[in-house]
């Protein structure tokens, strides 16, 4: 009954470094999403996936990459980190494309210095 698990919870990166944010769900959801939440703002969609092997861009995909090799896992890769990527990142999953809402992970707070 873990739901959506994100690791790490916190991370500090230096400008130009790269890292992967991990996301795993155990609910057999086909749909998975990555959002970012900037201070005082709502969430914006980075990438999403409708199933293993299928991914697509959201509103703010620049500077990120994703892969979906299994139903359970949906990692987000940051290449050449920039201060503008300082944010809280949320992974989410859903059945039925989200008509019943999403299940969110607890987020990763990333600071790029």
């Amino acid at each position, binding site marked *: 009954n873990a739901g959506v698990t994100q690791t790490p919870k916190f991370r500090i990166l230096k400008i130009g470094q790269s890292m992967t944010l991990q996301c795993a769900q155990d609910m057999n959801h086909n749909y998975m*999403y990555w959002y970012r939440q900037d201070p005082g703002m709502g969430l914006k969609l980075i990438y999403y996936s409708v199933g293993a092997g299928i991914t697509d861009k959201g509103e703010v995909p620049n500077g990120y990459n994703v892969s979906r090799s299994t139903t359970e896992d949906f990692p987000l890769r940051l290449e050449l980190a920039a201060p503008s990527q300082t944010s809280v990142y949320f992974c989410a999953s859903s059945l039925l494309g989200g008509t019943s809402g999403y299940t969110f992970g607890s*987020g990763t707070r990333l600071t790029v210095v």
Partner: protein
Amino acid sequence: AQTVTQSQPEMSVQEAETVTLSCTYDTSESDYYLFWYKQPPSRQMILVIRQEAYKQQNATENRFSVNFQKAAKSFSLKISDSQLGDAAMYFCAYRSALRQGAQKLVFGQGTRLTINP
């Protein structure tokens, strides 16, 4: 493109009282879903309540209820008998129902709710 607006950055209420959080949205679609999410200090996003636009009846979940005014494009959340555990950031969100498959949630900016003991 759809937009969601929460015009109250912060609200406060006395414990046990009732508070209403406002949300308006802009869309040209007739069929969609609306949600309220709660984000406590733990950062976890928790679904509070969901409304289907084609249903006229307002959704309720225990102490939480909505006032859905489709013509006015308004979707307010009422919290009755406020409890200290209700303190959180609340987000209103919209999802189109026009197409199947993954559809993004469009979020408002959030309202921070404080409960005064």
